[in-house]
């Protein structure tokens, strides 16, 4: 009986050991998989750099004749930490201006770009911030672009403000008619609060991850969202490629 007790105990210990080493094995496997992925990402970055070089220098003809009419409103989402590097943002805007983009919506979550609006205005012309009057800077006809600066407070919080507007309009008077709210009610309330700009057709996301980071939800319904990578690794040729791809997209809008 003592023998069976000992053997049972040692079997259990063996099982526990093998489970532990099994877990170690899976843990190592996970790290190996992620290491391989990181290597693949580096290879992809190198290939993208080559591709961008080829496009920028005219070796790939198809990306050069852009039908910019389709991009009526371009949105740029920038990671807030990267947005603090104003010179990088200015370089990006210079590229967009050179391509011929006229209307840009600049979004970063914390409003860093909003704080630097004077810098952009000086360089590129007029700028507009929701709820503020149109302010114009010196007109340089070649480089002039229209800007809109947006941050997280222009998203869900603005919708909450619109909700309060609607509440005041329809619910303060107990006897008034209370319609079921539709998109029209919301859009009108938002217009009263200064949100008059259209939805961006194309959204370029500059950051480590493909995520719109809280861009105003009701403006994203049919926007194409392209992840461009971190701002510090931006490439001119890839912007051309993204715009070119966008002009080729066919949307059914659900039907």
């Amino acid at each position, binding site marked *: 009986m003592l023998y069976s007790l000992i053997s049972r105990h040692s079997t259990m210990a063996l099982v526990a050991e093998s489970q532990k080493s099994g877990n170690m094995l899976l843990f190592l496997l996970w790290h190996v998989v992620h290491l391989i992925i990181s290597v693949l990402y580096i290879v992809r970055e190198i290939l993208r750099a080559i591709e961008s070089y080829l496009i920028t220098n005219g070796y790939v003809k198809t990306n050069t004749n852009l039908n910019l009419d389709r991009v009526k409103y371009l949105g740029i989402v920038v990671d807030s930490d990267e947005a603090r590097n104003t010179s990088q943002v200015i370089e990006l805007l210079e590229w967009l201006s050179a391509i011929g983009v006229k209307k840009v919506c600049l979004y970063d979550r*914390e409003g860093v770009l909003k704080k630097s609006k004077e810098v952009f205005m000086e360089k590129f012309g007029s700028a507009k911030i929701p709820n503020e009057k149109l302010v114009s800077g010196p007109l340089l006809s070649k480089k002039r672009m229209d800007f809109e600066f947006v941050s997280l407070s222009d998203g869900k919080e603005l919708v909450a403000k619109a909700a309060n507007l609607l509440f005041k309009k329809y619910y303060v008077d107990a006897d008034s008619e209370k319609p079921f709210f539709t998109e029209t009610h919301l859009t009108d309330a938002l217009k009263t609060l200064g949100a008059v700009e259209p939805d961006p057709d194309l959204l370029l996301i500059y950051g480590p991850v493909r995520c719109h980071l809280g861009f105003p939800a009701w403006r994203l319904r049919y926007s194409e969202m392209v992840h461009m990578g971190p701002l510090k690794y931006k490439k001119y040729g890839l912007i051309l490629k993204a715009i070119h791809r966008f002009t080729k997209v066919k949307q059914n809008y659900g039907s």
Partner: protein
Amino acid sequence: MEVNPIITTDNSLKQMEEERSENIMTKLLTDLNSTARKLLFGAISTGPIPQHIAFIMDGNRRFAKKWKLTEGGGHKAGFLALMSVLKYCYEIGVKYVTVYAFSLDNFNRRPDEVQYVMDLMQEKIEGFLKQLTIVNKYGVRVLFIGDLKRLYEPVRIAAEKAMEATAKNTKTYLLVCVAYTSSHEIPRAIYESCQAKSGVVMNGNGSVNGDYNHEVGIKVVDLDKHMYMGVAPDPDILVRSSGETRLSNFLLWQTTDCLLYSPKALWPEMGLWQVVWGILKFQMSYKYLEKKKKQA
């Protein structure tokens, strides 16, 4: 023996294989396949696993065109892909899965196609209701999200029955968005919040409820609570098949900190590798997105 693809599990598939064929090779390969998948999932589970994945099931009609099927055939193939994807998600440990089955915009499609999709939904939901014991064994709670009044009557009835039948399950959730768009969801949440607020004001013959403060008004948390999707946490990954990069009015409010993933595969071609790759991408973005969530 008729096989209902909705609830067929790995175990019952294996049983059928045994009954049908005595081929040892086949059995060996199936076991190997299943073990390999368990190993893969075990390795991935070492890192963070998303709690909620949402899918836009795009590409059924393109698939039908590619393989010269009828349009209905594309939707049917899409349904089979959905079952596989669900199985992999629940096996890996994802708790909430949301799928965009039918948009309010889709009512603009040709009437015969709309009818076909409605009929298919009704057929699948009713089939599902016949196999409730197995569904409840896996603890799947099914919720239909959207303006259900817009659905054709038999579909709506079947959907409500399915929701009632699985209401007690809490292990995993399947949220099926039908007759849904964010453009409808957001104003509706405002309407519901206003109704709730005015209900508080009207409490007790016009006298104001002690806790209610006129100045506070409606806040973002009130809107979150009244969204259709308020029943689940925000998605961690939003997957749109067919390589399209837009959200098409789906979960716009809920994707503030959500990883967007667009595999090139058409929806009926989606399977294990897209789910695995999506989760690996999520694991690579995890630290960054957690940081962003904390900053909000």
